[in-house]
């Protein structure tokens, strides 16, 4: 009862890694793609678009991820059936989109004024100025904070266990329910989350360092 069955624990948690990583990767990539148009709305000159963008960001960030998971799981059950994996992926992507949109927005505003002035002085139109000069720099500036955010996303993905996605957290809970010692089992699960986060952290640091040397005058 108090003895940890290493083989069983590792096998079960190993089976959960795929879900945790898959969920995190899809939500992150989804957020990187969908976050950009949301950021565009946030910085739009059209008030209605700005308003929609702001509302989206505030609502998605203001409600806990676990609440989104439950809301989408039960709320969309009639529409998409009760598939916990789809519900968890959608919920995590919705939230990631909001956070990453804010990274893009901050990054776009962070592009130095001189870049605008130089592009305007060369006769670029507003559209050219934005897409050729500001957006590419904004996206690059947003990479480092977004990579850091991916670590948070990895951990938030654990809420998927609540609606029954068999990720690492879910596996750990199931193990304890079938007699594995709680402390040791969750310690192993925690260690696996930590191990998974290390390469993301390393990537974030590398991107950050590259950016610093590149933007240095």
């Amino acid at each position, binding site marked *: 009862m108090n003895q940890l069955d290493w083989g069983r624990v590792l096998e079960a948690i190993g089976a959960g890694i795929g879900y945790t990583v898959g969920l995190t990767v899809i939500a992150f990539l989804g957020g990187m793609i969908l976050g950009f148009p949301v950021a565009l709305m946030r910085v739009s000159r059209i008030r209605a678009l700005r308003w929609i963008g702001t509302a989206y960001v505030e609502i998605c960030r203001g409600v806990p991820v676990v609440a989104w998971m439950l809301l989408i799981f039960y709320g969309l059950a009639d529409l998409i059936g009760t598939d916990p994996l789809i519900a968890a992926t959608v919920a995590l992507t919705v939230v990631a989109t909001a956070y990453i949109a804010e990274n893009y927005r901050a990054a776009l505003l962070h592009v*130095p004024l*001189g*870049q605008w*002035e*130089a*592009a*305007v*002085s*060369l*006769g*670029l*139109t507003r559209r*050219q100025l934005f897409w*050729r*000069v500001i957006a*590419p*720099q904004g996206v*690059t500036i947003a990479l480092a904070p977004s990579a850091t955010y991916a670590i948070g996303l990895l951990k938030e993905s654990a809420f998927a266990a609540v609606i029954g996605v068999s990720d690492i957290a879910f596996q750990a809970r199931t193990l304890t329910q079938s007699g594995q010692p709680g402390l040791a089992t969750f310690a192993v699960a925690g260690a696996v989350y930590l191990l998974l986060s290390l390469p993301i952290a390393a990537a974030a640091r590398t991107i950050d360092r590259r950016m610093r*040397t*590149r*933007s*240095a*005058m």
Partner: protein
Amino acid sequence: MAPTEGDQPLVRIDGLRKSYGEHTVLDGITLDVNAGDVVALIGPSGAGKSTLLRCVNYLEIPDEGVIELEGVPTAAAPSAPTKSELLAVRRKTGMVFQGFHLFPHLSVLRNITLAQELVLGRSSEDAEQRALQLLDRVGLREKASARPTQCSGGQQQRIAIARALALDPVVMLFDEPTSALDPEVSVEVLRVMRELADLGTTMVVVTHEMGFARRVADRVAMLAGGSLVEQGDPATMFSDPQHEVTARFLNAVFDR
């Protein structure tokens, strides 16, 4: 004498006014620049030199006054230029900033070809050929495929000059192009500017480099408190300034 095409100033600024709220920065500036001339704009910090230069290409929108290029007003209503007027005037003017402002995400070559393609509609081959020719002129052909951040400040400024020249502007505007550079690096930028002047490029240069103003400028214009205090050829103005503010300013600059 009836004015002919030839003796009309290339740039004509008349009665230019600009305020920020209560603060009048340009208080009715009148200044002509003839084709091929180099005009050095000097004056103390806060005099309105940058604002004047930036009004010429509408980076700042003037409140009142006339700005003509090649005898044609650049905007029907200078305080409310239309989009197409703005694009037209920016195509005709080249601007060089104190801080270079090269595009860091593009190669040096691409920095110089981008606007040629987008603004002038040149083919990428033509744009590239022109860019390489200009890089040759500023002595930086070997930097074509480098990123701007791999270049020194002096090199970046020479690239910025090439970028502006690539659109074949009728007048080049320089806002303290060497103020962010060490003196030994400034020299290479000033040499490029001098060569441009020798080639007959019309230039308005805001500068604290009095040596450059003396040797290269055809005319020096002194700005203080939003007004053009006096203008004249550099030798006369430096040795015999007509106004007290000019004398004080020149003393301060030359004493350094």
